[in-house]
């Protein structure tokens, strides 16, 4: 149980959502498997809304099929539609994996995905395509839980007893494609052999060129996923991941693969923790390139600390990202004013408690919250800057608090897929955004503020 102040925001109505729905997270995780296509068993609207949301964030076509259930099927069952959808997806997209995601509607109808998929495989004598069912009713959790549930379902679908090998497992939470690429670069520099999942670093951020592919190239290979039980260990960036959804915990329990749970490697402490484990595995020192990047980050932290100390960030979004950003903020002396997540079931409070309970002014902590609460608490706590997704836009529009865009979804800026915040270099890039936004506020206001203070004049509107 957490002891630092925790504000209950449990009301009946949710006003301006901080989270999205469960199947959306599963769609993103599925993009991290080679040759995979997502099929949503539900109303046509579900898949279209998810496509819209992904398209606006990633600026990439994200085709999601739907069984397009209508009134008739809600009475007679959606099996025939789902089978037809599978036929059509296979004809048009020729996927090697189809992830079938349930929705509120399908679950409420009592559709048995596993049975339908089994029947389908028998009836059609399906070869060359693996079908994976993931139950993701929107009433069961947010996109964060959907992401973990799908990742676990994918691993448990392929994993099989394997002889021990050297490749470690790396399981990443919902981060940007650029972050995944950076983690892979670090692993490469350290000389580590690994299987990273889900790897949507190329599928949700495709370079331009070549013939357009309906299913983009990239993603974790199923044959590599199959061998994950033979890994010497699993690193899961998932301090906030609930046990029942944890893919790493599942591998440990089922196959005895030791699980190392780490925070996302954002910030010097978390990144040091990550490379410490890696150096233990390889027995080699930190490569010079990473040592230099570490030095640059430290140098920048010294340069930025006084500016950062003026920031009182409100940090919101998915638990694992919030966990990482709060750690970074604390490292540079920007004490968070409000920490918030829309997710209800994470271990975020447990993870942050040791860091926050010691603070003179502990931040307000909001869980399963909405933006009406975040906005209210941010104002009350004197937040000067925000870190999070586009849902925070009213903080800027109504109160002039700038939002450093991070996380998902970001539909009001370009480049959500390229936001980098992991590794020494990625942290530095992110820290520069934070510092310079604070600088921008300072330069825009300090003359008028000093004048108002010293000469007792009124502070002009907007300062």
């Amino acid at each position: 149980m957490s002891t630092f102040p925790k504000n209950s925001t449990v009301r009946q109505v949710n006003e301006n959502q901080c989270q999205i729905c469960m199947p959306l997270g599963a769609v993103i995780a599925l993009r991290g498997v080679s040759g995979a296509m997502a099929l949503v068993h539900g109303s046509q609207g579900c898949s279209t809304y998810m496509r819209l949301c992904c398209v606006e964030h990633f600026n990439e076509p994200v085709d999601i099929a739907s069984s397009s259930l209508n009134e008739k099927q809600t009475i007679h069952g959606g099996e025939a539609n789902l089978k037809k959808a599978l036929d059509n997806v296979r004809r048009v997209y020729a996927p090697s994996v189809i992830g079938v995601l349930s929705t509120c509607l399908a679950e409420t109808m009592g559709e048995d995905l596993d049975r339908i998929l089994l029947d389908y495989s028998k009836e059609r004598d399906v070869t060359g395509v693996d079908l994976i069912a993931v139950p993701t009713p929107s009433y069961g959790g947010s996109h964060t839980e959907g992401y973990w549930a799908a990742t676990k379902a994918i691993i448990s679908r392929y994993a099989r007893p394997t002889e021990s090998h050297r490749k470690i497992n790396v399981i990443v939470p919902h981060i940007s494609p650029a972050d995944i690429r950076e983690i892979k670069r670090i692993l490469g520099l350290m000389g580590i052999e690994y299987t990273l999942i889900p790897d949507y670093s190329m599928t949700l951020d495709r370079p331009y060129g070549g013939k357009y592919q309906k299913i983009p190239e990239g993603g974790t290979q199923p044959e590599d996923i199959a061998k994950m039980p033979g890994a010497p260990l699993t690193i899961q960036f998932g301090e906030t991941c609930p046990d029942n959804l944890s893919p790493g915990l599942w591998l440990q329990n089922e196959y005895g693969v030791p699980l190392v749970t780490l925070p996302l490697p954002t910030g010097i402490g978390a990144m040091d923790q990550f490379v410490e484990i890696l150096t233990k595995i390889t027995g080699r020192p930190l490569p010079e390139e990473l040592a230099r990047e570490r030095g640059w980050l430290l140098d920048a932290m010294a340069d930025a600390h006084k500016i950062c100390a003026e920031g009182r960030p409100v940090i919101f979004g998915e638990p694992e990202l919030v966990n990482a950003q709060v750690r970074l903020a604390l490292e540079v002396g920007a004490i968070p004013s409000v920490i918030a997540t829309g997710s209800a079931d994470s271990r975020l409070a447990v993870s942050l408690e040791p860091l926050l309970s010691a603070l003179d002014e502990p931040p307000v902590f909001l869980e399963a919250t909405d933006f009406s609460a975040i906005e209210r608490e941010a104002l009350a706590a004197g937040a000067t800057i925000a870190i999070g997704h586009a849902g925070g836009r009213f903080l800027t529009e109504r109160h002039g608090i700038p939002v450093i865009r991070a996380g998902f979804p970001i539909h009001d800026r370009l480049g959500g897929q390229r936001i980098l915040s992991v590794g020494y270099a990625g942290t530095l890039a992110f820290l520069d955004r934070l510092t310079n936004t604070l600088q921008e506020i300072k330069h825009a206001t300090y003359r008028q503020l000093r004048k108002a203070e010293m000469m007792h004049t009124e502070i002009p509107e907007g300062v």
Partner: protein
Amino acid sequence: MEDLCTLPAGHAAPLSERDRSIMTAGRSKTAIHCADDSLAGSVSQRACVFCGARVVLNPVTDAAHLVHGPIGCASYTWDIRGSLSSGPEMYRNSFSTDMKERDVVFGGEKKLAACIDEIVEKSHPPAVFVYATCVTGMIGDDIVAVCKEATRHHGIDVIPVESSGFISGNKVVGYRAAAIALMRLITPKEGERIEKTRKLNFLGEYNLSGEMWLARRYLQEMGIEINVAFTGDSTVAALKQAPGACLNLVQCTGSMHWMAMQMEKEFGIPFMDVNFFGAENTAESLRRIAKFYDDPEITERAEALIARETARIQPALDRYRQKLSGKRAAIYVGGAYKAVALIRQLRGLGMEIVLTGTQTGKKEEYAAIGNLLDEGAVVVDDTNPAEIERFLTEMKVDVMAGGVKERVLAYKLGVGFVDHNHDRKECLAGFDGAVNFAREVYVTTCSPVWKYLKVPPEDQHEVQP
């Protein structure tokens, strides 16, 4: 290239069931198959009933919009449309009853009632629209009863919207659900009387980027007042005065035609279709409105306005026309009225329309579109990314007009794109909008980026390693 743009209707679709939803202007012998359920697994660009209802009602600025269901439906539709308000901002919030598993098992009526109470207590809206979603429809929550009780309890309009997503994948069904909710709102209560005026209502106008305000300026200049728009920049109080209008203009016919017919039946208000997209359409619409009022002064002012504005924008349009002449355009939009307007506008810029499609068109609308287009142009209903990809590449399209999902695909294929959707931020209506539109078409069609991006021919049919 001639053989490429004469795509035979019989072989256009990757899925053979879709063939009959694609026709070739001047060549197809049978009518297009449309207004049906989407083909499962086809990756339709359509949405759902809830989406249709929410689009129509959300611009009511001072109402609270409460989505009764699990969180997703509210998250996806929070403040995503570009309808502007001259005052209240309530409509930009998205309320959800955020149903959890226990609510699905035990029913969500109590939670719904509690949510309405909280909203009314905190924000005092003059009305609350309560949207049903798939789950609440499935479990049989009686939202009508809950809304009735809340109306009585709070003394404001709490209006159920029967918008369970599964009822149809066709937004048009959602438009109807919204229209029924609006009729419920505007029908005078017993003993109430709404004075008849010389003002008009503007139906199917959502004030995207202030387009209603522009139309109002034109009409005011002619000496005509807008009573209320459905629903751009409308308030609950203003909507309740709707029965007092002497005429209903209907712009987005897909969303508001039924509403106009109902209002004619219930309140005796005649209606006429208008279209403010493109200079010609705008001029034509203003003339028809003037004719309805049958007042020489109004007609005279309308003609003066049209002459002045047309002369003012013509040089700009001519400039863009010079740059755009002969370029090839594709259109894929929600409804037919917009498709027709776009065909006219793009043609006016000297462009060739090689593809036109809609999500929700009806047979007679497609027939009209087919007649407008040159022989060989393709007409498509409820298309999907695989077909769009094929059309855009095979038909050598230079620019496409449509919605967000089509935009990213067009860009991936090196094709320019015009945003003619609900989240657009530029005014595309009226005379000024015609210039803005031409400018946007020019900027994207003739952008320097394409010369770096255009896929070299040798890559067109080769899979890159």
